[in-house]
């Protein structure tokens, strides 16, 4: 019985309640929220050190009866994959709180409410990754929607009602389809074991012997829910709307963490529970993944709205992750999990810097900006770093993961891998072109011209009312930049944690690992 995960779960919830009560005093509420998130980060570090990569599959476990009538246990535990995701959550939440510190909220909304919802969502997100009981997983999967729904709907952009509703309905529909499969798992286990269970580790031993047709039906229930979450084309249309309308902080968590529930679900539930179905349907998933990479990249090139741009780049990135998972090789799988972490860092940073640009120009449209680097050189430089990380330049974190995915997928799936590699070229195109339009050249665009004081005016940094990054913003971005570089040059600590879990997952699927064979 380990209390670390339980503390990780409960702390943000307590924080959320405390902050909700402090709504009257915005400053105090923010400070308390930040304090809670930092303690949570310390706890996550503690969990990381307590985790033994060479040890059991699931560690830090705890379990208690919840609904005995249905064999439901409140059980938690992490493997390496879940651990790095929980660490990412604990890292991103304080960053997001810092990044949203001075956000202009819609009229009549208090910052306390915003941060209370953020912390409530943190509990939900940790629960999703820490649950080792399928029922509990489902509960957190749905519960996490509620705070996000309110974050978008109450604090979002002009079209927030539509975006919040679309986000909620898509996810809920996916969740309900998954519920059918969850119930199916219970009935199947009741048939086999005499009494039904939701315990993941037990279910794995039950379901892998199921006939293929049953596996396929159950697989599809989970898969559709996860494909909506992770968004795979064609179930992605909610993400650009939700991402664009969400307040920046919520957007970071939306694409950085919430969407990873989908890819995490592939690894934790689809593959080990339904190995035969996973193999059978892998070509379908791979096609969706490659289409997602190319389609997301092309649409990212064509976006005129910066937040939608980030959302579409994410769709492309999720294509890479799905490719890595369903290529069934340990290198690609490890790369995919590392990609999940890196995408959270680099896209999170991209979202934050876009938010900082918007805070200065007041517009989401790319054409309202131009030559901004002259006014805000530091912001321009950091925007560039985030962009380079997003396009996977060697030396940045994303390069390692993207390279691992591609090199690991090639032996099994050469055609899809070659097509996916085209996405890397497109990534360079969309990132650099965006940077060029917003930051390079003479100062232009309505948002900036107004700020500078008329067309053609000589830019005088003293006079310009477009300030560069302040200390708070620098402090928010600094840890992200540091991680981008550290993981770019020395990803070993993370890889060490991930690799055994990915290996165990793949051995459950039972596909011959091309890399391991070469080793022999």
């Amino acid at each position, binding site marked *: 019985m380990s209390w670390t995960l339980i503390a990780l779960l409960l702390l943000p919830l307590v924080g959320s309640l405390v902050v909700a009560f402090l709504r009257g005093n915005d400053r105090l509420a923010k400070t308390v929220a930040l304090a809670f998130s930092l303690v949570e980060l310390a706890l996550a570090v503690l969990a990381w050190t307590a985790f033994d990569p060479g040890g059991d599959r699931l560690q830090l476990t705890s379990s208690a009866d919840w609904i005995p009538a249905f064999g439901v246990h409140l059980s938690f535990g992490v493997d390496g994959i879940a651990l790095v995701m929980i660490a990412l959550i604990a890292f991103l939440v304080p960053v997001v709180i810092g990044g949203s510190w001075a956000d202009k909220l819609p009229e009549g909304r208090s910052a306390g409410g915003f941060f209370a919802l953020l912390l409530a969502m943190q509990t939900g997100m940790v629960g999703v990754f820490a649950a080792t009981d399928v029922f509990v997983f489902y509960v*957190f999967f749905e519960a996490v929607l509620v705070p996000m729904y309110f974050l978008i*709907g109450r604090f979002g952009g002009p079209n927030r*009602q539509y975006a919040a*509703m679309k986000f909620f309905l898509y996810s809920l529909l996916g969740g309900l389809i998954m519920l059918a499969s969850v119930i199916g798992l219970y009935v199947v286990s009741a048939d086999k074991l005499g009494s039904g269970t939701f315990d993941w580790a037990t279910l794995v031993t039950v379901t892998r012997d199921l006939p293929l047709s049953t596996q396929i039906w159950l697989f599809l229930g989970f898969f559709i829910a996860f494909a909506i979450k992770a968004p795979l084309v064609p179930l992605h249309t909610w993400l650009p709307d939700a991402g664009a309308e969400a307040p920046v902080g919520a957007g970071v968590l939306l694409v950085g963490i919430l969407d990873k529930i989908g890819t995490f679900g592939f690894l934790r539930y689809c593959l080990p529970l339904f190995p035969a179905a996973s193999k059978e349907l892998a070509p379908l998933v791979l096609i969706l993944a490659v289409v997602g990479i190319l389609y997301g990249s092309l649409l990212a090139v064509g976006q005129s709205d910066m937040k939608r741009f980030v959302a579409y780049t994410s769709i492309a990135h999720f294509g890479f992750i799905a490719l890595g998972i369903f290529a069934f090789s340990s290198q690609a799988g490890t790369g995919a999990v590392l990609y999940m972490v890196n995408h959270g860092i680099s896209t999170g940073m991209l979202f934050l810097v876009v938010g900082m640009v918007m805070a200065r120009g007041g517009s989401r449209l790319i054409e309202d900006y131009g030559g901004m680097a002259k006014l805000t050189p530091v912001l321009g430089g950091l925007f560039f770093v985030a962009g380079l990380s997003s396009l996977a330049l060697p030396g940045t974190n994303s390069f390692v993961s993207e390279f691992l995915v591609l090199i690991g997928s090639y032996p099994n799936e050469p055609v899809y891998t070659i097509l996916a590699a085209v996405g890397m070229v497109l990534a360079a195109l969309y990132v650099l072109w965006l940077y060029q339009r917003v930051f390079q050249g003479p100062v232009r665009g309505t948002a900036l011209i107004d700020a500078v004081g008329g067309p053609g005016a000589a830019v005088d940094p003293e006079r310009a009312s477009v300030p560069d990054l302040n200390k708070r913003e620098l402090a928010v971005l600094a840890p992200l930049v540091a991680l981008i570089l550290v993981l770019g040059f020395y990803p070993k600590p993370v890889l060490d944690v991930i690799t055994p879990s990915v290996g165990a997952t793949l051995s459950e699927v039972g596909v011959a690992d091309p890399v391991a064979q070469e080793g022999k």
Partner: protein
Amino acid sequence: MTTFLSQVERLPAPEIDYGAVAPLLIVLGAACISVLFEAFLPKAQRWASQVVLTLLTLAAAGVGLAVYASAESTLEQGKLTLSGTIAVDRPVIFLWATLLLLGLGAVLLIADRSVEPGGAFVADASILPGTKAGVKMQTRELATRREMQTEVFPLTLFALGGMMVFVASNDLLTMFIALEVLSLPLYLMCGLARRRRLLSQEAAVKYFLLGAFASAFFLYGVALLYGFAGSVKLSDIASATTATDRSDTLLYAGFGLLIVGLLFKASVGPFHAWTPDVYQGSPTPVTAFMAACTKVAAFGGILRVLYGAFERSSWEWSGVLWGVAIASMVIGAVLGLTQTDVKRMIAYSSVAHAGFLLIGAISLNDQGLSGTMFYLLAYGFTTIAAFGVVTLVRNSDGEATHLSQWAGLAKRSPVVAAVFTFLLLALAGLPLTSGFVGKFVVFAAAVEAQMVPLVVIALVASAVAAFFYLRVIVLMYFSEPAVDGPTVSVPGAFTTVAITLGAAITLVLGVYPSFALEWAGAGVFIF
């Protein structure tokens, strides 16, 4: 003459297990006393005495039930009494407890006189709108006179007593009597709204006419089944269905007519046509009573009839009830999308929920039985609390039920909006609410019974229905308040207790459902 008398002497008096039927006797007896109160007490004292009497009755019946339920002899299964016409077995104990608890919630709403000065019920129901006296009285005086028709209390108790007999009756004739005892008071109660008298009376007439038809269907079905089996006892019908020498036509026709009558009461689509109008027109506390308690009684009856009499002929009718369940879910979910009145919206939601409940009922396994009963308990409390909130949102014309008037409610009244949001999420079936556990147990039973396609349709219907619950949340939280929007009354003690009770049970059953699931699964019907 002598032969006749000797016959009479040989007719044995039925054995009555007073312990088992004590809750029934208490409720029905108190209803009679309550009528006497109406007749003999001065007007000023009636309301207070009726409230005290009704609450005491519910408490006493609850105690009686608890004593019986914990007795050694009934722990296993239960008893047949009154010549086998009433069965008080484990499911009946659960349903009675549910009815009494939900009745308590509804009575609290009915008794409240602070939200609407004088109570939600008209001061003088006999004054007709449209007549000379009515026109004069209609608008101002009648709506503001600080008194109410306290007959609503005995009517509630009679209806509740009828419901209790209904779920316990072991033969179809007893069931029919119970159906009438529960229905007739409800028809009257619908017409008692203080405001919008015409709408209220229209609702009463509509409910009465359609209800009378449904009763006729039910009775005709009973007659045909008697022709089929030679008995109205459920167990006799059950054994007759296994014989080969009987008329299938009588069985099918009898079952069809019987089940139509039951589905009507349960507001299962496509027999739901009365539901939106009656829910909208009735005084909101009565709507809450109908939505929660009638649903429990009707599904209790459906469960009893299906398990008791027709379990062995299920392959002959399950296809039809599949269709009915699908129709109900689709009608409820789709038509709910277009509603602009919050009471009508909850009415359509209840039609959709009836479809989910029917899925559990036709699973015909132990999980189906306990799951359906759990669902009834969970849904009943959520609904009562939801209607309790509806009574609070008012403008100068009474309750503001049009959805546009709810815009921006969270700004003016964050607590009420938060409670209602929670209840709506429970109705939508989000985890950590009782609605989710209810759906889960029912669907699990259905999957167990090889009804996977039905479950998938139900899940899609849930997703569609979620849209209209969410729309209300969007209105309350994300929209700007309407300029001349309604105010939220500060609820009196009774309404506060009712809403708190409903919301708390919705939460408890969502977070820790084990004990209720155990009670619901403690035993099976005896016949």
